[in-house]
């Protein structure tokens, strides 16, 4: 049966068919749906979990593989940075049951804080990497990755990109092939990586890379398509689709399904058979530099950008010199439509107060990063998950306690568990006085509502023990912990004022659930009465439902956008906004 599947769903199907027994991941766009889809397969067949962070997830996978079961973790490109430590050493240990690390890059940064190219990790860690170009290949390559892993005693990367992960195309579904657990054997030289053993394993790794390179020459995923042209194109993944659409049968293709290690002889033969050879790859010149190092006269980044996504028209123009299709365009500049906090978002109350108090806000990654957008413009920094806490510690130490009293960290519940808690321990241990605000909206919002250790539910929706944030902070040595509702603006403001002034570290838990959660039922909507004095305080909330009427300067509330959360009612100094039930 053929089915229209997201690339991510197809990866999950491939892992399922391959008999995967454990999938452990931390969410991250564009990889999240892989793990969500895994949780739709029977629990008796696959154990699936959200881990607190990518490192933990990868370690669970490595353990499962050592114990003889096939296992997979899936992350976004920056997630691979977090799990890099165990990954590099697992390259030495290898596997029992097959281990697959699936990583999704985000060219164009649709949902990311940087545009790194994960292929470098394959080369640096000496782990082979496969790269599918559509959903059918997502399934096939993932399935094959498990077999390859066991055949060569190595973990295997599957690299995706946003347009592969988030495009649906047709996939043939097959049955699951159960894989018996491999025998578990204690094997100190292979599994205990201390210097004496690791020295031996490094020899194995280098020898394995040579065997993998030889395998790449005949790997069915590396194909040459000859169309009788003098032009040759070396490409992989989504770039192949763009090239094929742009150039059709007018060039020859060398399509690499295995992007590390590379099939050197195949590339040499291909290049020798063409008069001109181009490398078409988004992001870094990874394949290009490998070709140049072999002495092949290829062209790539001298024609094409290092930035963002490619398009067929860009490739057609670069290689054939053909102009793109004609089009009409608006004759005026259009207002941008950046993402905004939803109507009813609990973070809005928090940032309204922080902005009003003019505090320096050490920010983090989640829906609340939008606190940097106008009109709240509250967030000062965003680096990576967890950095709100640890970077604020650094800020406070160099600028002193007066600065620290005008500084807060903001961090979501999921992000706090991911890597904020270690920063908090640093503050306590090294005598900081920072205030950390944990934005507890009862869910992992940004990536589309995943449960996490603070929500009390597993990925399959089963009840589980909930991490007690208060108890956790207290146990690491925070004596001042307040819980406050960010929609009770006056109280919230008073709490923030009090805690930042303190000469000791403190935590404020801003508690109010995400407005998009099913359990949250705001009703009715808000209305502006004739008591409005046009003071525009409500406009500072940046609520998508509240706007100024052009010309009159009167405030109006769009009932199709308003969900009746009532935050503006409490903010209005003239009690001019009223709540109406439907």
């Amino acid at each position: 049966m053929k089915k229209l599947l997201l690339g991510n769903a197809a990866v999950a199907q491939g892992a399922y068919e391959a008999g995967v027994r454990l999938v452990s991941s931390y969410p991250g766009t564009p990889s999240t749906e892989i793990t969500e889809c895994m949780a739709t397969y029977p629990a008796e067949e696959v154990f699936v979990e959200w881990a607190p962070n990518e490192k933990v997830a990868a370690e669970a996978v490595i353990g499962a593989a050592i114990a003889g079961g096939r296992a997979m973790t899936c992350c976004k490109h920056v997630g691979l940075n977090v799990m890099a430590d165990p990954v590099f050493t697992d390259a030495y240990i290898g596997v029992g049951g097959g281990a697959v690390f699936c990583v999704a890059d985000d060219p164009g940064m649709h949902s990311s804080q940087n545009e790194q190219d994960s292929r470098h990790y394959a080369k640096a860690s000496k782990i082979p990497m496969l790269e599918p170009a559509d959903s059918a290949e997502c399934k096939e390559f993932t399935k094959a990755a498990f077999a390859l892993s066991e055949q060569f005693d190595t973990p295997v990367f599957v690299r995706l990109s946003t347009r592969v992960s988030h495009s649906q195309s047709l996939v043939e579904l097959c049955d699951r092939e159960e894989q018996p657990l491999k025998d578990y054997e204690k094997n100190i030289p292979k599994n205990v990586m201390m210097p004496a053993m690791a020295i031996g394993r490094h020899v194995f790794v280098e020898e394995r890379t040579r065997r993998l390179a030889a395998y790449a020459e005949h790997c069915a995923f590396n194909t040459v398509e000859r169309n009788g042209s003098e032009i040759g194109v070396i490409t992989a993944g989504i770039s192949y689709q763009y090239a094929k659409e742009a150039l059709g049968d007018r060039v020859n293709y060398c399509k690499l399904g295995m992007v590390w290690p590379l099939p050197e002889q195949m590339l040499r033969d291909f290049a020798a058979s063409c008069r001109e050879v181009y490398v078409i790859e988004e992001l870094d010149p990874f394949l290009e530099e490998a070709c140049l190092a072999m002495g092949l006269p290829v062209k790539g980044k001298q024609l094409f950008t290092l930035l963002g996504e490619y398009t067929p028209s860009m490739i057609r123009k670069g290689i054939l010199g053909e102009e793109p299709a004609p089009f009409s365009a608006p004759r005026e500049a259009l207002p941008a439509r950046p993402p905004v906090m939803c109507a009813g978002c609990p973070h809005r109350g928090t940032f309204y107060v922080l902005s009003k108090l003019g505090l320096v806000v050490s920010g983090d990654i989640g829906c609340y990063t939008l606190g940097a957008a106008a009109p709240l413009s509250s967030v000062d920094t965003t680096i990576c998950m967890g950095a709100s806490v640890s970077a604020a510690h650094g800020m406070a130490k160099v600028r002193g306690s007066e600065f620290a009293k005008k500084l807060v960290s903001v961090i979501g519940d999921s992000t706090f568990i991911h890597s904020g808690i270690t920063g908090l321990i640093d503050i306590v241990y090294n005598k900081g006085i920072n205030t950390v605000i944990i934005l507890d909206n009862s869910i992992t919002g940004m990536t589309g509502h995943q449960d996490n250790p603070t929500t009390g539910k597993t990925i399959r929706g089963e009840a589980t023990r909930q991490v007690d944030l208060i108890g956790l902070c207290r146990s690491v040595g925070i004596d001042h912990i307040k819980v406050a509702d960010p929609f009770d603006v006056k109280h919230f403001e008073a709490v923030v004022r009090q805690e930042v002034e303190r000469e000791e570290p403190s935590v404020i838990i801003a508690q109010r659930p995400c407005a998009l959660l099913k359990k949250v039922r705001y009703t009715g909507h808000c209305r502006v009465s004739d008591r409005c004095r046009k003071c525009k305080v409500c406009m500072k909330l940046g609520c998508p439902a509240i706007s100024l009427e052009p010309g009159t300067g009167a405030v109006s509330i769009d009932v199709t956008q308003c969900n009746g959360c009532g935050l503006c009612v409490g903010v209005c100094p003239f009690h001019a906004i009223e709540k109406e039930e439907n």
Partner: protein
Amino acid sequence: MGTMNIMIVGVGGQGTLLASRILGNAVVRRGYDVKVSEVHGMSQRGGSVVTYVKYGDRVYSPVIDRGEADIILAFELLEAYRALPWLKQGGKIIVNTQRINPMPVITGAAEYPENIGEKLGALADLTAVDALELARRAGSEKAVNVVLIGVMAKSTAIPYEEWLDTVRTTVPEKFLDINLRAFELGYQL
């Protein structure tokens, strides 16, 4: 057949993903090769959202280039205008006449362009629909997406009955009646 390129644009939260699911499923039943490209994540939070649906004998790139969309199905006026450069010469725009102010307009940093409908009408084959009103009539404002699919359905070679079947198998059981009414109201327009 060559490739048919349909671009669905709107504002995060308007239900464009369901529209592309229905369209994707409808063309799969016809035996076409198809690719549907969505963007998840950040842009869903009230930002501009774009979905591409491409079908034909063989589809390679899941993305539609500028000047190559046969149909633009727009859930909001400004987003229709923003998508104009993607329209093929001679292509068709179907637009919901709803206006949703983006944050720069709300804060007064920018102005919402005037008379977008007329401007688009002068440059392209335009069908403007008050899909929000039709959705209300069908029983829920949320059914804007299915109203618009109904309007678009007439511009495709896929028969009416097949569209209905696809709506039946794609939307959640609970909202089936509302959605069938919504499809009908769009289709009969």
